[in-house]
């Protein structure tokens, strides 16, 4: 496959150095590596710096509302299970206003992949506290340092029973591409939390580089839920890699398709036949 098929003529408007460049690169790389043609990819994003991503990679996409990438993605996937459906958005989008969708999409095990560009801040709205902002973090909304405990999305999603939980770093696009590939190959919902620093409002590149390590380097077993939880709750160090994966649960789309007469494709629109119709109104007589 020509690696240029994903190129867009629109240049990212991110600040120079923004972590999201790394995510974009990793995503492109993952899709090309997996040899997925671009027309089979659907990216659903929200509102935020990170959510501007769709225009920079040439696939089908929806650049929608703050917090709602997942429900749109779910609708797309349920309607057309042949598509590779990816939701890509910020920590405000997914861990703040839209987190309930994350929980329920994970619980139902929809076959969509969620990439969260987590910069611990609301980038686009000029740097206010996000749900993952650390205690003590100074922003316009916390001039004396935040008093609020951050959300731990990974341990929460493990508590939910999500079937794939990983964390990457935009500063290591190769590793991130590998995680995204695994996520796409996973049968079911996958969360790839990406530490994607905001160089303008909350530059944590150095901190991350100091604290990070790879789970695969320490022999972490991604089928061990308790170990995954412990890793997810580390604060002094930042583990990267695949925390947890389980492929036991069928996906929502598999289950719903088995329910529905698969002979009627979702995009085919046709009238009911006279017989079908007559049968349908029978109970009303």
């Amino acid at each position, binding site marked *: 496959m020509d690696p240029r098929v994903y*190129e*867009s*003529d*629109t240049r990212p*408007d991110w600040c120079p150095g923004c972590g999201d460049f790394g995510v974009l690169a990793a995503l492109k790389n993952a899709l090309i590596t997996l040899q997925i043609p*671009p*027309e*089979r990819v*659907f990216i659903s994003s929200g*509102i935020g710096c990170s959510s*501007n991503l*769709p*225009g920079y990679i*040439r*696939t*089908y*996409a*929806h*650049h*929608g*509302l703050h917090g*709602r990438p997942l*429900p*749109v*993605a*779910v*609708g*797309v*996937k*349920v*309607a*057309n299970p*042949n*598509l590779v459906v990816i939701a890509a958005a910020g920590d405000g989008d997914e861990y703040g206003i839209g987190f*309930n*969708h994350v*929980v*329920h999409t994970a619980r139902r095990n929809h076959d969509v992949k969620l990439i969260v560009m987590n910069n611990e801040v609301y980038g686009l709205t000029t740097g206010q506290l996000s749900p993952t902002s650390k205690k003590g973090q100074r922003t316009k909304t916390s001039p004396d340092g935040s008093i609020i405990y951050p959300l731990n999305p990974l341990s929460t999603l493990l508590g939910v029973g999500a079937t794939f939980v990983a964390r990457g770093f935009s500063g290591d696009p190769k590793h991130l591409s590998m995680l995204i590939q695994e996520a796409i190959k996973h049968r079911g919902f996958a969360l790839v939390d990406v530490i994607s620093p905001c160089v303008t409002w909350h530059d944590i590149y150095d901190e991350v580089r100091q604290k990070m390590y790879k789970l695969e380097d320490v022999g972490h077993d991604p089928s061990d839920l308790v170990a995954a939880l412990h890793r997810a709750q580390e604060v002094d160090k930042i583990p990267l890699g695949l925390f947890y994966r389980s492929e036991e649960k069928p996906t929502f789309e598999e289950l*719903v398709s088995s*329910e*529905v*007469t*698969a*002979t*009627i494709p*979702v*995009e*085919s*629109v*046709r*009238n*009911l*036949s*006279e017989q*079908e*119709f007559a049968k*349908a*109104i029978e109970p*009303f*007589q």
Partner: protein
Amino acid sequence: MSSANIVVETNIILAYKMSDDESSKDVTVRLGAAAGDGIQSAGEIVTKIFSRSGLYVSTYNGNQSLIRGGHVWFHVHAGESRVYSLGFGIDYLVALTQLAYDEHYMNVNRGGVIIYDSSVVKEHDFPDHVTKVDAPLTKIALKYEKRPIMKNTVAIGLLCGLLGLDFKLVGDVISEQFFRKPDVQKSNVEAARDGYEFSKQFGTLKKLTYDYTKRRTFMHADYAFALGAVAAGCRFYAAYPMSPASPILHWMASNAKRFGVRVFLGEDEIAVVNATIGASLAGARSLCATSGGGFSLMQEAIGQAAMTETPLVVVDVMRAGPSTGLPTKTAQGDLNMMLGISHDDFPRVILAPRSPEDAFRTAGRAFNLAEKYQLPVIVLLDFAIGDGGYATVENLNPNIPIERGKIVKEAAPDMHNGVWFKRYALTEDGVSPRALPGTPGLMFVAKTDEHDEFGHDLSDVLAGLREAVDMRRKQFNKRMIKLQGVAKEMNPPDVFGPDKADLTIVTWGSSSLPVREALERLWGDGFKVNSYEFYDIYPFPADVESMLKQASELMDVEQNYTAQMAKLIRRETGVLIQKYYLKYDGEPIYPIEVVKAVKQHIAGSNGR
């Protein structure tokens, strides 16, 4: 007419005795009991019996938001020719509880009947010229069951006996209704027969002519809309339960397999509408439904669909608000919300079917409009015709024309080299061809930010630059111009009654039905009145102004406090309606109320 000033004191006008014409071609039955007594099921049995006797029906469910206790009632209006609404008064009252007697006895018509069991219900103030049928309903029921749950079956048998209906049909319908409970199927039929036998001691009471060869279809607008949607190719349905929209969900869930509908139960209404938009983008004809509170939550996403030009059909089955309000009661209070959905201006279509039949037809139209013009279409139903009221439906035509609008199936050869698809191409009619994900070479971003023809942002690096400002204006115009196309498809109100009249009632949606019955009565009384029934609401149909100006005098009848339709009419035409009958207490409009309002008005005073 400042909204602060419209305070309309409606009266509950239920007490009347007027149907003393025993030969009239219709009959009204009211069954009253407590929640949990199975009155809904009893009402359905009666409705079915009538429908299989060739009668036309229209019913109303006076239910409450509770599972057991309280007071619930079921009203059936049946006629040899078309009936529309609750009819006039009560011909047959079945009062299974004291409350049922107390609440309804005074509304029984001259020549009517009250069926009750004096071992449970104490009669008082028994109306003159009403036949008293004190029946041992409980005693008979206890013959078959330890709890007297079966007493409504006995009452149905008795009622059908008085009405002179064939018992075979009664037995058949009861058997059918209980077919999932074989243990009580037979005993219920027996109990009904006992009631039927008991009726024989009464002389001639009001009966109709039956035609058992006719098997009419009846349903409420929720089911009719769901059926219409599936018949028009609906392939995705999403919902979060909310009365009175839930029957659509239940029907879809039960029929999903058969019709290839993917049913998605969202975690909230926001997920529901966004998933519907996603499915629509993916190419499915997609639908969701809710009631007012859920719709409030959907608003942001409806603006999104308008901006991304994604076809979307949303049903709002209205109930009495505001806020939680009266969840099991009816209203037409959501029109203003639909005129002001979400922030800033975007195109939308608002349709308000008047009846289940209308709802069936509207489903296909809604999908066609949504797909042809790529915008949100809102369908307003309400409890009175939705969950709350069955009506006979005729001539449902499953061959609904399917118009999907401009869809590009294949990319031009030069589209495969790194070019984006011009999803938002500027066109004369404002509609741009769309492509379905999966099609090679036609990639685009559906964009809620203001965008150029390719769906690229105008909102960031380009914002405010002269070219971007110009494109912004063009895209805004393009979206709004689509309404001109829609407007050509909008129907003016239907005129019910004579073309010329001394008084014209302006009404919309389900309120049209009680108005029809009121008009028929008024014609009989020699009044020259007609009505304009609005069902295509927005974009406001053309030529309405001249219709309104031709009318001698106008009176607005609708079910909300601020006369929302009248305000829309004034906004769009300048015509000020000065007479109103507004009802906002949650109860359905009774035809007699409209009759009285018209008479008072014609007698010179204000009919409110």
